C-alpha cells in the first residue's frame, strides 16, 4: 500500500511542527527584546535600589574632590601639614592581617656593580655675593592651591576601603541568652577622588553657584518600594532561560570543576553589567598615568572564581590601541590594579550566572580621562 500525497503532506507538516517546537525558541530569543527588562525587574530589590540611590554610594561624585582641586589662590588656604616630617616613626611589629602562606622569597639583588657614580655637585661657587646655602631639608612650600587629594591620612574615624562598610560596634546590652560576639570594626569608606580636571584658570576665584549634584552613572531600573507582585512578568523566553539555567546548575553540581566552553544560561542584565563596570572604575586610577598612557586603550582578560573574585594570575592584556608598548604596559598595570583592588572582596555578580562571567574581557578606554 503506497501512501498518497495527503499522507506525505501530513507527515512533513508534523515533522516541521516538531522541529519548530524543538528549535523555534532560538529564533524567538534572538529577536525578542524583552529579556533585559524582565530580568532587571526580577533582580533589582528595593534595598539594592535604595543603596544605589545613596549619594555616598555613587562612585561618580567628584564634587568634594573638586573642591580640593581648585581652592582659590587668593585664599590663605591652610598649608598641608608636614606629615612627612612630623610623623613619628612608630614601627610596631603588628601581626600580619593575613599570614602569607608562602612568603615571597627575597628578590635577588640585582644591583649592577657598575652602578652610575654621581659626579660631585657643582662646587660652592665663589660668587661675588655671599653664597647662602639654605637648610638641607628645605622643602617646597605648599601653594594655596594644592594637590587633588592632599589629605595624607584617612579620616580618623574611618579606614580606607574599597567598599562602604557601616560601623559595627558591640551591642551595649547583648542578649544574655545569645552569646554573639560582635567584633568591633571601624567604619570604612572609599577615598575621595575626582574624575575631572579643572584648572585654576577655569575655576573662578569665587564660587558663583552651588555645587550641582551629578546624575547617576546609568539609568537603573526603578523598582517600587512595594513588594513585588505575586506573579512576576515572565518574558516569552524566560522559561527557556530558566531551563537552561537549571541545566547549568545541575551540571555544576555534578561536576563543579570543569567550566563550559561557551557561556550558557541567561546573560547578565544591563544593570548587572553596569554594576560591574561601576565597581571596577572606582579603582581605575589614571592619576599617575603618563600622558602617553592616557592615549592608550587596553583590553584585559580576567578569569573569575566562583566567589566573584578575580584570579590574579589569569589577568593578561589581550590587545592595546593608540600608544606604544611602554605606554600600554603602564595602562595595563593601572587596569590590573583596578581589577584586583576592587575585586578583593568579590564583585557583586549573580552566582547563578557564573558561566556568563567566568571570563571577562574589560576594555579600559581613557578617552574621557585625558588631559584636555
Amino acid at each position: 500500500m503506497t501512501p498518497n500525497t495527503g499522507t506525505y503532506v501530513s507527515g512533513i507538516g508534523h515533522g516541521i511542527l516538531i522541529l519548530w517546537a524543538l528549535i523555534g525558541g532560538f529564533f524567538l530569543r534572538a529577536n525578542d527584546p524583552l529579556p533585559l527588562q524582565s530580568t532587571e525587574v526580577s533582580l533589582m530589590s528595593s534595598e539594592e535600589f535604595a543603596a544605589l540611590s545613596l549619594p555616598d554610594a555613587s562612585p561618580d561624585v567628584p564634587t568634594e574632590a573638586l573642591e580640593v582641586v581648585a581652592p582659590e589662590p587668593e585664599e590663605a588656604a591652610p598649608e598641608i601639614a608636614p606629615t612627612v616630617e612630623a610623623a613619628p616613626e612608630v614601627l610596631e611589629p603588628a601581626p600580619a592581617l593575613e599570614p602569607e602562606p608562602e612568603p615571597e622569597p627575597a628578590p635577588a639583588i640585582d644591583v649592577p656593580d657598575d652602578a652610575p657614580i654621581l659626579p660631585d655637585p657643582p662646587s660652592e661657587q665663589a660668587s661675588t655675593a655671599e653664597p647662602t646655602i639654605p637648610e638641607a631639608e628645605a622643602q617646597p612650600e605648599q601653594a594655596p592651591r594644592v594637590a587633588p587629594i592632599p589629605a595624607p591620612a584617612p579620616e580618623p574615624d574611618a579606614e580606607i576601603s574599597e567598599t562602604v562598610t557601616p560601623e559595627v560596634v558591640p551591642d551595649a546590652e547583648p542578649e544574655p541568652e545569645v552569646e554573639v560576639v560582635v567584633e568591633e570594626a571601624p567604619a570604612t569608606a572609599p577615598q575621595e577622588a575626582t574624575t575631572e580636571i579643572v584648572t585654576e584658570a577655569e575655576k573662578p576665584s569665587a564660587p558663583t553657584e552651588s555645587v550641582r549634584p551629578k546624575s547617576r552613572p546609568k539609568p537603573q531600573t526603578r523598582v517600587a518600594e512595594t513588594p513585588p507582585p505575586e506573579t512576576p512578568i515572565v518574558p516569552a523566553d524566560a522559561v527557556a532561560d530558566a531551563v537552561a539555567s537549571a541545566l547549568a546548575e545541575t551540571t555544576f553540581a555534578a561536576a563543579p570543576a570543569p567550566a563550559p566552553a561557551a557561556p550558557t544560561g541567561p546573560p547578565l542584565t544591563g544593570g548587572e553589567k553596569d554594576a560591574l563596570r561601576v565597581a571596577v572604575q572606582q579603582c581605575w586610577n589614571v592619576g599617575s598615568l603618563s600622558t602617553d598612557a592616557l592615549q592608550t586603550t587596553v583590553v584585559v582578560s580576567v578569569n573569575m572564581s566562583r566567589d566573584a573574585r578575580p584570579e590574579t594570575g589569569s589577568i593578561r592584556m589581550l590587545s592595546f590601541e593608540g600608544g606604544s608598548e611602554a605606554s600600554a604596559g603602564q595602562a595595563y598595570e593601572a587596569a590590573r590594579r583596578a581589577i584586583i583592588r576592587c575585586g578583593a572582596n568579590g564583585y557583586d555578580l549573580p552566582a547563578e550566572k557564573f558561566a556568563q562571567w567566568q571570563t571577562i574581557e574589560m576594555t579600559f578606554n581613557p578617552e574621557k580621562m585625558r588631559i584636555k
Partner: protein
Amino acid sequence: MRLLKALTLAILCLGAAIPATAQERSGPLRIEITEGVIEPLPIAVPTFIAENPAAQEYADAIARVIAADLTGTGLFREIPRDAFISRITSFDSTIQYSDWKAINAQAVVTGAVSAAGDGRITVKFRLFDVFADAQLGDGLQFGGSAGSWRRMAHKVADAVYSRITGEGGYFDSRVVFVAESGPKDARLKRLGVMDYDGANVQYLTDSSSIVLAPRFSPTGDRVLYTSYETGSPRVFVLDVGTVQRRALDLPAETMTFAPRFGPDGQTVVFSLTEGGNSDLYATNVNGGGIQRLTSTPSIETAPGFSPDGSRIVFESDRSGTQQLYVMPAAGGEPTRISFGQGRYGTPVWSPRGDLIAFTKQNEGRFHIGVMRVDGSEERLLTASFLDEGPTWAPNGRVIMFTRGTQGAGGEPALYSVDISGRNLRRVQTEGPASDPAWSPLLQ
C-alpha cells in the same frame, strides 16, 4: 515533490542558522570602562636602612627627600609611617605584601644607605608593586660624595617616578632664577641657581646691576642672561661651574636681550633693538657674526627653539596686538598660532615638542597656558594678578613660572603647576624670585 524539496531546503537553512545564533551568545563577558578616578597613588617610603653607623644621618633624610619629591608631583600620596604594619629591618628582607595591601599601599620603596670611610656614600633601593605581588624593575644603587646625598635621593625618586608613571623624572635638575631684594621701586637683582625644589641655593652674580631672563644651555653648564652692567641691556653667557661670564660678541651700539640657546648648545637666538625697532637675530655663542631672522617694523622678541632646532616660536605685534608666531629656524615667513582673546607672550616649546607654553593677558588677568604647536587646544592653567614667564620641567609635565602679587608690597615668587592644571605649588625661595629657567636633567 517540489514542496518537499522546498521544505527540506528550509530545514537545512534553519540548521545552518542555529550555530550562528548560538555563537552570538558565546564568548566571554565584555564590558568597557571609560570613567576612572584621578587620585594620587598611595605609596609607602619607609626609612632606609643604615648599613653602618656613619650612614645613620642620611638614611632617614634620603627617604624624606624621596617622599617629598614624589608627593610634590601631586601624583602620589605618602602613607604615614605610623600606619605601617610591617617594618623593614633589612634591605634583603622580604616585604609582606598583605601588610601593605591592608593599608592600601600600592607601591613600596625600600632602600639602604652605606657610608665608606672616604666620605662617599652608596644609596640603593627597590620598588615593589604591592597589588602585583612583585618587584617593579631591578634594584639600583647610586654612589657619590656625602655632600651630594640630596642628588642621590632625587635620582632614586626619578627612577621610582619613571617606573610607575612611564614618564621621565625631573627631580635631579636645577633652576636658575633672578633673586630679588629691596623695595619695589629700587629692586636689586642677581642670578641664583638652586635645586628644583628650592634647596641648595647658590648665587652666580652680585646685585650691582640688573639681570634678566637667565636661560640654561642644553647641557646645563652655561647660562645666557641679559645684564645692564654696561648701562644698556646686553646678552651675557656665564659658566655655572666657574662663575666666569662674558658678553656675547654683538654690536655694541645696540640693545640685545631675550637670549635662548638652540638645542646644539652653540646657536643663540635673541632680540636686537636698533633705531627703535626690535627684530630677531641668531649668532654663535663663541662669536662669528650675527644672522638676521626677521625684518619688520614691529616688535619681535622672546624667541625659542623647537626641541629639534628646526623652528622658532616668538611673540610679535605685527598684527596690531601681541601674538605668537612660528617660523623656520633660519628665518622665513612666520605662521601665527594664537588667535584667542587677549595678548600672548613669552612662548616656550615643550621638551617633548608637542606643546607651547605661554603667558596670556586678558581682561586684566594673567594666565599661564599651553597650546599645541599649531595653536589648537589652548588651555589656561592658572589665573592671577600677574603670572608670567613659563619654563618647562625636563620631562615636559610640569611648568614653573613667576607669580606677582598686587600692591606696593607685592613681591614675585616662583610657582609650579602640572600641565593638567592641577597641583599648583609655590617653590620655596629665600626671598622674592622671578624669571625661572629649568635645567635639563643633570648627568
